[in-house]
């Protein structure tokens, strides 16, 4: 996995719905409160999971018909 994708959603309820849909599809998702530096308010609920490239999360969300606001990518494993 090269990236960690962080996804924001239109509302907390939309985020909760997305979290469960992604988990049911087998993705190791967890909740985060997205930081303001990413253009979101500090406490908005997001979903984070590892991915291979920048396209993967967008295609996945489209395939699962999950409405989202933005996708942010972070390089995985930089610290190590």
């Amino acid at each position: 996995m090269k990236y960690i994708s962080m996804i924001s959603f239109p509302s907390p309820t939309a985020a909760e719905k997305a979290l469960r849909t992604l988990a049911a599809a087998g993705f190791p998702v967890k909740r985060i409160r997205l930081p303001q530096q990413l253009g979101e308010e500090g406490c908005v609920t997001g979903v984070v999971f590892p991915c291979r490239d920048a396209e993967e999360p967008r295609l996945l969300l489209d395939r699962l018909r999950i409405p989202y606001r933005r996708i942010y990518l972070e390089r995985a494993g930089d610290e190590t």
Partner: protein
Amino acid sequence: MIYFDNASTSWPKPPGVIKAVTGAMETASSLHRGTGTGAETSEDILFDLRTRASAFFGAPGEESVVLTMNATHALNLVIKGMAKEGTRVVTSGFEHNAVMRPLYALREKGVVTDQVPSGLFENERFLENFKKAILKKTDLVILNCVSNVYGWILPFREAAELAYEKGIPVLLDASQAAGHIPVGFTRGVEFIAAAGHKGLFGPGGTGLLLSRGDHILPPLMEGGTGFDSRSEEMPSLLPERLEAGTVNIPGAAGLAAGIAFVCDRGLQNILAHERSLARRIGEELSAFSNVKCFSCRLPERQTGVISFLVKGEPPEKTALALAERGVAVRAGLHCAPGAHDHAGNPEGSVRLSFSPFNTMAEAEEFLAVMASLSSVRGNS
């Protein structure tokens, strides 16, 4: 104590409800705001309630479920959100003050309300007059599914269908129906308001507004939602648009457990049990020459709620005599003076309302108490 006042507040609560409320108070913290497991637990609790309530009422999804303080809050959201100057609202004559008082308050803003005339249990006459009422320009129909005084199941599905044919949105007041009879988003139904603390066995201070999502309501209150804080306006999306401030998470946990209890028992089983108690008591009360009992000849038109009057005695006095003998009931106008007027007993009534926790032995004990009252024997 024999508790026959479940139409006010159901009691006792199922053990699962008490456990859920306690559990939430022990584990849940800041919803939509903080971090940590407590905050995550809050998210899970509220989403679980939305999932259960959405499935229970056949709503489009979790977004359709707004947690409110009570049914009155839910009704006010729709009534004050939909009614503008010149709006004409059609209701039944058997509405609760939770509907009528907001409508009366809007009179000075030019909102007109027409109550469909009908007597008690008169489904055919109600529908005939409802058809006539919606021939005139109508912007909103508000219908009580079940009368809180008499347990009358109004023909709300048929009325909603008629409203649908004319393109009129319908708000159902399911306060006395939820947990007793099926209520859902059949054609024409745009909103359902429900109390949490009655037939759904949630704690006091909980209610639900369910929306089909075709009408965007303005919020009754503005405030924090935990997200989009830079915006000067409330979010545009449901349910957060209508949930300003921190919501009642222990209440949500209890209400979700209450809905689970109702689903486990089964609506049909609950209704059959409550009706059997009402029928037994109704038959016996009708046999007292000094008692006027409001039970329907057609049992399918009444839930497990039954009202009566001891002739020549104020209902409050009868209720006091029953309370002194260990039977809790409700007496008076039940926040529905119009329902009494339309049923022809403006002086009020004594109401008995049952739950799955009541037994036939309690019904028999109640009847024995009634037979012991001098006012009922007719020699007071």
